[in-house]
């Protein structure tokens, strides 16, 4: 593997029980993407689409940019909900994925199409 000597902290995704190392200057989502890992859904990586919504259960993050209020309300934000593409880890993180892909054409039709 290529050497990346930046100091990192572990990010643990509870649902998949996966842990990946994430640097302090990258978002939780970028850290995951950089390693080609999975667990948190990936969308715009720019805070607008909301698919990467997570609940931070343990640890501290710092903001990298605005999060869409269409997906995370101000109140939710105080409760630890945020977008994984908009926060970087300060300490080790344990999180739960709450965002999910919404399914256009495919899924809704599976039942009707295969009936």
């Amino acid at each position, binding site marked *: 593997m290529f050497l990346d000597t930046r100091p990192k902290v572990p990010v643990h995704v509870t649902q998949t029980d996966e842990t990946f190392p994430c640097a302090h200057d990258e978002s939780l989502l970028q850290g995951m993407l950089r390693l080609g890992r999975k667990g948190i859904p990936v969308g715009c990586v720019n805070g*607008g689409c909301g698919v990467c919504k997570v609940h931070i259960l343990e640890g501290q993050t710092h903001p990298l940019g605005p999060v869409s209020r269409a997906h995370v309300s101000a109140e939710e934000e105080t409760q630890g909900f945020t977008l994984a593409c908009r926060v970087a880890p300060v300490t080790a993180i344990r999180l739960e994925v709450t965002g999910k892909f919404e399914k256009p054409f495919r899924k*809704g039709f599976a039942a009707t199409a295969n009936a």
Partner: protein
Amino acid sequence: MGIMRIGHASLRVMDMAAALKHYEKVLGMKKTMEDKHGNVYLKCWDEWDKFSVILTPSDQAGLNHVAYKVEKDSDLDELKKKVEAYGIKTAMLEEGTLPSMGRMLQFNLPSGHEMRLYAMKEYVGTEVGIDNPDPWPDNITGAGAHWLDHCLLMCELNPETGINKVAENTKFMTDVLDFFLTEQVVVGPNGAIQAATWMARTTTPHDIAFVGGPRMGLHHIAFFLDSWNDILKSADVMAKTKTRIDVAPTRHGITRGETIYFFDPSGNRNETFAGLGYLAQRDRPVTTWDESHLGSGIFYHTGDLVPSFTEVYT
């Protein structure tokens, strides 16, 4: 003649400085104006009207409205009657509601998206002018997009409850605004559900498209480039500027377009799109894609559906 083409898209952005940098440096647009509310107006080098993108400051991403230009001012009165006769409320926004623009006919599509029609927007000219012009200007930056080409709107589609705003929009666009259908995706038993449509007023395969999803929203706005090589270059520009690429350069089966998808800094999806595809005509038979070929329709080479492409939008 009614509607000529797409005129502009008004987008919500969460960080104006970052958004402006993106539309200038990546797409190669130029800022032409800023109003007292902090909205920023931009145009591409090959466009002659004052703007084709409006960026409005917001706490979320997404589309405010999309506007199409009609040929004559009187078209607005005629279309107002037709839209209202169809059962959709309209409002005539007076001249100056948006700077450098004449009056606008405002209404919502059956899907809920706000559409505006207008006949007048201030003429400023292309970067190469009209007298013995060069084919392209020397001050092109970034991808050097020629013009805003089309938009794709996500429309609510729920077969269980029988809601299909794709079909409703398509019927409205056909019956009232006189668009014609070029391609469609049909799904379900006997292809009974029209799940996505591509529609035109010009001679390109689409001036607007509708795709079914769980909720209404904006899938993308697209900008025109000449060639496949320009698509490659625009991908290089995105790599240089650390722009989030959604789908690397490829070809669509639907419309035959050569394409790359990426996100603006607020997560609104953009496309740069090249190639004529084919000459869209009213008497050209409609192309139909079925459920089992949907992957190839979208990404012709791999035929794979990319989750972030089909399931993420603002």
